[in-house]
């Protein structure tokens, strides 16, 4: 296993601190008390069993979307299409959840599998276009997002037959819900999905670090031309990376469809799970453990934001500003490194002068 250098840990931690600082400044400018704001934010994140339950519940889909983005990143690909793949996975899981009547040990895996396969097919498109026509995957996957948004709404209306904006609930045999977990967390919506997500993170690590496939995928990410020269099929790996990334994304949708909501609702806009996944992957440095921790942090911020609005009257949208600021700081790692090096340099000079 490769060693984490201090800098690799430094940038995420500095970014989180700077991001929270930005949040404090925005609160001050808006005329709110940052101390009180942060106290209710953190209490809303981890302050009670209910808060912990909700945070973990919200972390499950983010772990999946984070893994999806991170997996593609490792092959040097940017899957900005997770947002759409989440919707496709969600609709497929709910469809199987409603329309089949099977024993749980078949039904639940089948619903999860449906989400994976549907989203993988969706993710295949940008991967294929990149490999075959050299089309940049960012643009195609953005376009696929909107096609997914309108298509899922159309499927919900015509195939599943939604009335009142929402599908009927899935059968219990496909549900991830757990009365025990709910009771443990004083009736949050926590479900088994978070365990499935941790399992997926282990699979993620295993594929990338312990299999030939993973080795090839990472090699293509490091250097396409060298991999080609070494006899790997770059195009095959690009498509595969997108398909596997799509599977993770589809499961993020299944978390919502089989766990949190047990249904799907017509929507005019995206869930945000996919875009948050980009933030998660980035902060987590594309590592399995990093993704889990970053997902818990961002999920907690999203959940705590609501408590902050109630407790300190600070608009919950502040959380989006904090998350965006953290991402901008992580992305600007070059500048942070530069400043840190400068500071170190100055200190050395100071020592020499003495």
């Amino acid at each position: 296993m490769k060693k984490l250098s201090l800098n690799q840990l430094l940038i995420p931690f500095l970014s989180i601190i700077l991001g929270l600082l930005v949040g404090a400044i925005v609160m001050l400018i808006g005329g709110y008390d940052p101390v009180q704001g942060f106290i209710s934010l953190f209490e809303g994140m981890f302050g009670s069993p209910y808060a912990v339950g909700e945070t973990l519940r919200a972390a499950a889909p983010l772990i999946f979307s984070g893994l999806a983005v991170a997996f593609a990143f490792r092959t040097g690909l940017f899957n900005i299409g997770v947002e759409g793949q989440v919707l496709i996975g969600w609709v497929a899981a709910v469809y199987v959840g409603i329309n089949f009547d099977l024993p749980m040990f078949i039904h639940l895996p089948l619903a999860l599998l449906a989400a994976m396969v549907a989203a993988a097919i969706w993710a295949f498109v940008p991967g294929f276009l990149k490999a075959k026509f050299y089309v940049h995957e960012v643009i195609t996957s953005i376009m696929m997002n909107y096609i997914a948004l309108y298509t899922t709404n159309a499927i919900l209306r015509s195939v599943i037959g939604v009335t009142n904006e929402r599908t009927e609930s899935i059968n219990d045999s496909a549900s991830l819900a757990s009365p025990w977990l709910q009771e443990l967390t004083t009736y949050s919506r926590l479900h088994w999905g978070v365990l499935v997500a941790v399992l997926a993170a282990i699979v993620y690590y295993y594929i990338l670090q312990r299999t030939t496939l993973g080795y090839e995928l990472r090699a293509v990410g490091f250097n396409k031309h060298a991999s080609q020269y070494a006899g790997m099929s770059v195009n095959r790996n690009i498509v595969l990376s997108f398909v596997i990334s799509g599977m993770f994304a589809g499961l993020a949708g299944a978390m919502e469809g089989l766990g949190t909501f047990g249904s799907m609702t017509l929507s005019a806009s995206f869930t945000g799970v996919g875009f948050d996944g980009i933030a998660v992957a980035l902060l987590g440095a594309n590592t399995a453990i990093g993704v889990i921790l970053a997902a818990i942090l961002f999920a907690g911020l999203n959940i705590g934001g609501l408590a902050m609005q109630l407790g300190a009257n600070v608009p919950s949208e502040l959380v989006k500003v904090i998350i965006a600021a953290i991402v901008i700081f992580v992305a600007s790692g070059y500048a942070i490194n530069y400043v840190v090096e400068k500071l170190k340099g100055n200190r050395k000079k100071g020592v020499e002068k003495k």
Partner: protein
Amino acid sequence: MNFLEVLYIVVPVALAYATPLIIAALGGIFSERSGVVNIALEGIMVIGAATGIITTLTLTDLGVGASSPWIALLVAMVVGALFSLFLAVPAILWRADQTVLGVAINMLAIGLAIFVVRVLYNKGQTDFIEYRIAKENVPFLSDIPVLKMFFINVQYTSFVAIALAFVVWFVIFKTPFGLRLRSVGEHPMAADTMGINVTKMRFMGVMLSGAFGGLAGAVYAVTVTTNFSGTTIVGQGFLAIAAMIFGKWNPLGALGAGLFFGFAQALSIIGSNLPVINNVPQLLLLIAPYALTILALAGLVGRADAPKSVGIPYIKGKR
């Protein structure tokens, strides 16, 4: 209802929806021609829309009257240009990944805009503006048979957008500034060798796209929605990016694509009330712009090639 009468209804709506798309796509061209990917166009439009509405409301309170939305458009341009610095500074100076930045800025924009609205008005959306940019019949021109479809029920902002497309085309292809802008987007090292300041040109490209994006958002807000909420701008920025690509990074192409996408949007919204068109599934109209853009990129509907160095930070002395 005959075909012509249908057009008299559809074309004005199409123009209204096409206008912000065209303006934002022109902004995208400035940024991408200079070599900076602008996924943040969506967020910049959000900021523009919020600025447009808040300024209009404030000016109306101050008694400025019917000219308030027009002044608001100018304010939104300035705010959009300043907001685009969140993209320009990390992308150009700190070599940050431009696509990641774009995603983050879109998040920042919606968070910041709603935060400000809550601070100012104590609720999640603004009131409706009293003075909007009105739909008018152009004198004389609206009396011409057939051609009048372009001049009835139209907002003057639509003509501004079309004129801007020609202006931007001239600036990009016929002026020294345009040549320099394109050269730093195609081959920054060669441009640098010839004494062009790559950093400065890219800053101008991104800030121009910020100004146009801000204007586009504000135009959409003061002509179509007339208030601001979290669902005012949902996807128009990305649709504008599609129009930019479908128009092959050419301002006149973007004009054509913007008009075409606006037409598709208009049909998807009012098509169910019209004969013939109500037989076309709405889904098809909704996804047409995105599907066609993918096909264009794949070379199936005329090849679309991006500026060569778009998305790559320029590092002096690196080959």
